[in-house]
């Protein structure tokens, strides 16, 4: 366990950026998002949810999967081998860290997505524990401790004037060694302060819902009339899916000019009207009702069924706050019988 005074963070980041491309939360106009570290650009370590979750570093919004030449002969070039420069993410919150392990279930299961795997391997995550939840946070619903981030390589806890950093993986330990010059050894007092912060972080949730047994309940809810009411508000934008740290649907598109081209994988959203539209005209999800149902059933029923009971939600609250029409997963959990307490 090491520590650093918050006044000296610039120094830490300078050292980190020498180890790899360093990204941390930065405010640009009204939006806080992960950005490449630049000297003199202050990081924002207060805002809990970045605009986009860090999934974009593993699973970029746009990514070339294949390049080709098709003049005389067809030549295919695997683009996934180019993925994966050494990257350090600083300030990933526990919920977003947890989301990565959900994403792993998709992209690291057979057949493994090579580009994802390389990026995952080459990235060091320095998580930053939360001190106090925001009104839309409900990560504890999914048993995520806002003061801990087991999936991270390093965990940083803000004890007030200092960040206390703990290594949680081999990669993390290696990095700590490299940072020896700027970090101080933590004391047992620090350890106590960390514990206090962690404990406090778990209190003060405004939003308490429970998903206990919800996946099973939802088995019978596919035809529920609830969906008929719920979907009407949806405007079929992709805000919820693109901002969601666990959403992972994609599309493959061709970009070609002359005799060469590339196949690009890009984020797609099950909310979009053409998501399942087939060339012949058939669409198994013809209206927004089916699409809205798909999204929530996927998160709360299908995903748990496919992946050992784990829900595809980490309670980060981005969709709750950003949905233009206030149609969010909290409402669905409540309506579909998730236990509720608190506000």
């Amino acid at each position: 366990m090491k520590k650093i005074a918050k006044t000296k963070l610039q120094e830490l980041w300078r050292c980190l950026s020498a180890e790899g491309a360093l990204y941390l939360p930065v405010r640009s106009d009204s939006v806080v998002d992960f950005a490449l570290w630049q000297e003199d650009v202050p990081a924002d370590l207060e805002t809990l949810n970045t605009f986009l979750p860090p999934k974009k570093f593993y699973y970029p919004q746009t990514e070339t999967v294949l390049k080709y030449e098709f003049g005389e002969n067809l030549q295919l070039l695997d683009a996934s081998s180019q993925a994966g420069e050494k990257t350090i993410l600083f300030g990933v919150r526990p919920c977003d860290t947890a989301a990565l392990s959900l994403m792993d279930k998709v992209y690291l299961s057979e057949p493994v997505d090579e580009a994802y795997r390389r990026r995952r391997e080459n990235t060091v995550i320095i998580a930053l524990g939360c001190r106090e939840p925001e009104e839309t946070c409900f990560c504890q619903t999914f048993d995520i401790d806002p003061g801990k981030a087991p999936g991270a390589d390093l965990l940083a806890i803000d004890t007030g004037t200092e960040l206390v950093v703990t290594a949680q993986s081999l990669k993390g330990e290696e990095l700590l060694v490299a940072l020896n010059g700027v970090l101080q050894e933590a004391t047992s007092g620090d350890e106590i302060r960390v514990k206090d912060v962690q404990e406090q972080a778990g209190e003060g949730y405004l939003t308490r819902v429970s998903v206990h047994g919800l996946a099973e309940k939802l088995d019978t809810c596919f035809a529920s009339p609830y969906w008929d009411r719920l979907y009407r508000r949806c405007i079929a934008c992709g805000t919820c899916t693109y901002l969601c740290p666990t959403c992972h649907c994609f599309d493959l598109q061709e970009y070609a000019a002359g005799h060469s081209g590339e196949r690009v994988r890009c984020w797609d959203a099950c909310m979009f009207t053409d998501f399942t539209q087939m060339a012949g005209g058939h669409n198994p999800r013809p209206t927004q009702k089916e699409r809205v149902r798909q999204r929530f059933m996927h998160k709360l029923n299908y995903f748990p069924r496919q992946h050992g009971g784990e829900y595809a939600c980490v309670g980060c609250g981005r969709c709750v706050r950003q949905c233009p029409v206030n149609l969010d997963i909290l409402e669905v959990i409540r309506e579909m019988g998730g236990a509720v307490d608190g506000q």
Partner: protein
Amino acid sequence: MKRTGVFICWCGSNIAATVDIELAVAAAKNMPGVVFADQNKYMCSEIGQEIIKEAIRSHRLERVVVASCSPRMHENTFRKTVAAAGLNPYFLEIANVREQCSWVHKDKETATAKAIALIRTAVAKALRNEALFASELPIERRALVIGGGIAGIQAALDIADSGFVVDLVEKEPSIGGRMAQLDKTFPTLDCSACILTPKMVEVAQSEKITLFTYAEIEKVEGYVGNFTVTVRNRARSVDMSKCTGCGDCMLKCPVKVDSEFDLGLVKRRAIYTPFPQAVPNKPAIDREHCRWFTENKCRVCEKICPAGAIDYSQEDELMTVKYGAIVAATGFDPKKLGNYGEYAYGKHPDVLTSLEFERLLNASGPTAGKILRPSNGRPPKNVAFIQCVGSRDKAKGNPYCAKVCCMYTAKHAILLCEKVPGARPFVFYIDVRTPGKDYEEFYNRAYEEYGATYIKGNVSKVFPDGDKLLVRSVDALSGALVELEVEMVVLANSVDARAGAKELAQKLSITTNAFNFFNEAHPKLRPVETHTAGIFLAGTCQGPKDIPETVAQASAAAMKVTALLGKDSLLSTPTVAEVDEKLCTGDMSCLVVCPYGAISEKILEERRGRETVRRKVAEVNMVLCQGCGACTVACRPGAINLKGFTNEQIMAEVEAICL
């Protein structure tokens, strides 16, 4: 990908000197879709064309690109070539490597690179070319002429003369129009009635012409070759088949109304013909004033009519007829002078408009052709003619020139001198405009021979002064103030579009200018056509004109009509807009920008789940559409596309040209 062949023309040395043909052929062979590429010294020659045809056959080509001179030069040649080899002619694309490459660039290397890019672009487009066909439409061989003035009469006669059936629809009880109101005509001073009435009679007697007077256009539907027009035949209250035109009824009718034909200078009866030489010379009852219709008493005419032709029970009748072509010849209205108090019009009886003066001149007019002052019935000595009343006046009149006033005022000056010995005409003018055969000479005579005094200056005010009128102005040439004492003032009031022109234009789907004159399709090259195919213009409904010009345009319109009706069928441009109904929102943004009225609304019925839903979509009339493509950009969802220049094709060209 479609099997495409590329044929590069040397054009002798015109192209070959600047473009490396060998290199271009090699590059073409490597383009996507190209399965064959060749070259020839003159592709347009018989040998060149044979090469293309042979290659289409032996290489099973589906698309052809010729790199040569401008498509404006040989596109048709090569279309015929590919058609002769069994392909749709629109499978051809031309890369313009002469006018837009070899002739304007010097450097062989860059010119060759550009030529290759142009060929690549043409190939990219050709790959997306689709078979296009001109569609054929039958033509209704009957014409409609709206308006029975000299323009309508001339057009109807000319069309009938070519052997086609014409319906002539006139709003008033008689044809004749404005020209019938005139006395003599410039520059020859021959009598208007003498030259007009024979034509009116000819109309009445023509077997090919059916005359509908006292009738109005109710509705126009359809399109070129296939108009369906509803005409309202207003109740005349006189049975035309029984009436002999004896005129007894008009003598006995107790109601007196201002005569429209004589501009209120005399009265007519409630049962009337507008003027003695009317065609048909059978009266109509003006129900607005007829005592039977207003007060439910009288019925004198019924009693007096020897033929028993009076029929108060008649009602307006709607008839619907199909026409292949329509001529609009609805004429003009003289400007109403409400705004021009300074001229004392309406305040002093001796201030007249030029058309009123014309009636005074006319032998069948209120004074039997004598020029007499309405105030005292005596002939005037000094008469002021004020030109440009309501013309060339941005502030409260028309900004445009009424075109005929200079000439008819000269005519009035001459006739005044002839009819009133010793009379002196004073003409106040801004400019005197006399472009026309023998017009300047006519004007010269007015001041040289007849001593009309022309004063360059607009009259600022006319003061009634006892039984005289004081006219105040300035002579802009000398700078002298002018104050004349005259006995009569004649105002050359401007020419307005006919009241109701705008409404008719809407019915016809033709456009008007800001002053409600009908717009021609092109001011220079298509002066008698409108944007709506099959609708033509004659006379002053298009803008101010004199009689010779009106008659010339009427004949031209008739010629356009006969050319149209003489065809076996109509062939449309194949490159027309088409609507993808799936994408169409039905907001009709396309309709608004279409200059040809080629787009209309259509209700589409489609299955959605178990229901049948109806929704609005746009529909393109392929005959009317001329293929400008303005609609394609107005259409936000890209639902309307232009065949031959589709979004897909142009996008492909853009991508290929930028490579």
